[in-house]
């Protein structure tokens, strides 16, 4: 049957898919936080692969749907850019998990608790910001700007903390091989938070355009 709703883009599926993608990103971070909380527990990469693949499937569904939908509430390019930005979160998380498992014996005494908190806060903000897109209208821009400001703050605090840790690594207190392993892991955690910030920037840009 010919659907006017489909033709004029009143279809909610893009919002559903983008929200699902952000939830997958959050889920991958929750798994990562579990891994970091108990580094001595035998870890498996399978669940990280599964989370990333689930998000990849959503991203592919979005791409496909964009090709077959005539009009969308959000601009097609924006949906595509946001979908790619969201997918990069579990992808980077998976990369971190791979490295962490490889060098687990070298870094088992490292404390990642603060990182865990930053990751948790950042992904929560991303999930919340994606939900803003469903009902664009009055007041949304202020909300998006406020949430994005908070996300930028989290990213800034995480950067400061990363620099503090780097200072410790460069101090000569640790074996060079441990410095190498930890520096790479810290860099990847920084990248995960950067990916969340990127997603936040894309969302703010979309809201700004619709304001």
């Amino acid at each position, binding site marked *: 049957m010919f659907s006017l709703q489909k033709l004029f883009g009143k279809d909610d599926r893009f919002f559903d898919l983008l929200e699902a993608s952000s939830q997958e990103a959050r889920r991958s971070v929750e798994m990562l936080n579990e891994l970091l909380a108990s580094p001595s527990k035998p870890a498996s990469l399978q669940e990280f692969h599964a989370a990333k693949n689930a998000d990849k499937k959503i991203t592919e569904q979005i791409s496909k749907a964009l090709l077959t939908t005539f009009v969308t509430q959000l601009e097609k390019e924006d949906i595509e850019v946001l979908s790619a930005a969201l997918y990069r979160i579990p992808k980077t998380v998976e990369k971190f998990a791979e490295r962490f498992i490889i060098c687990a014996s070298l870094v088992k005494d490292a404390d990642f608790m603060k990182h865990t908190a930053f990751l948790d806060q950042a992904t929560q903000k991303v999930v919340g910001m994606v939900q803003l897109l469903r009902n664009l209208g009055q007041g949304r821009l202020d909300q998006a700007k406020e949430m994005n400001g908070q996300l930028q703050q989290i990213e800034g605090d995480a950067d400061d903390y990363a620099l503090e840790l780097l200072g410790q690594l*460069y101090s000569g207190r640790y074996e060079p091989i441990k410095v190498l392993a930890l520096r790479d892991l810290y860099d990847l955690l920084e990248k995960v938070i950067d990916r969340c910030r990127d997603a936040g920037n894309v969302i703010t840009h979309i809201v*700004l355009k619709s304001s």
Partner: protein
Amino acid sequence: MISFQRLLGREDEFFGLLEASASECMAVIEALRRIVSLPGEKASLEEFVTARRRDKEVTQKLEEMLIHTFVTPIEREDLEQLAEKLYKIPKTVEKFAERYSLVVQRVTDVAFEPHAAALSQGMGLLLQMVKALKAGDINAVKARQTDLRTLARGAETSLAESIALLYQPNYDALKAIIVKDLYDLIERTLERIREAAAVIAHVLLKNS
């Protein structure tokens, strides 16, 4: 009253913002040159943070203008991309400065000055390209891009020679890691400059 200039584009404002962004990049690279010319001295990061923030403000202003302007002097995606590439330059330089200030006492005998000088020259060429973009002068852009390529090749060779020293058997392993991290950030800054230059060349070619 309806202003057609406002409706149809704010060319000078767009190009002015791009130039302002490139000038902030130049300022931050000059600050980098200053700190590496005083080995062993703890550097203040304030000017790096301030310059990067100023550049961010310029980039945000440009993004907002892009949304609210009907016609842009060049395609909006290209303007967005160029602004983003320019913003990444002070960001990467700030990262170098932060890390350098952590280890300033450990790297007193490492000569970062020639590498910083190459960045400064490269940024000077990029700034000229941004100005040539406004004038639509494709010949000037192409000539500066060729200069930049030649400069970048020389800078990369010089960096590779410096990195080779770190792999000598008796070199302190921790110091090698630290210095290599710093060299990587210099290389990344050079890449950012080249990427911004490539966007400008692409834009002018498209519109020629």
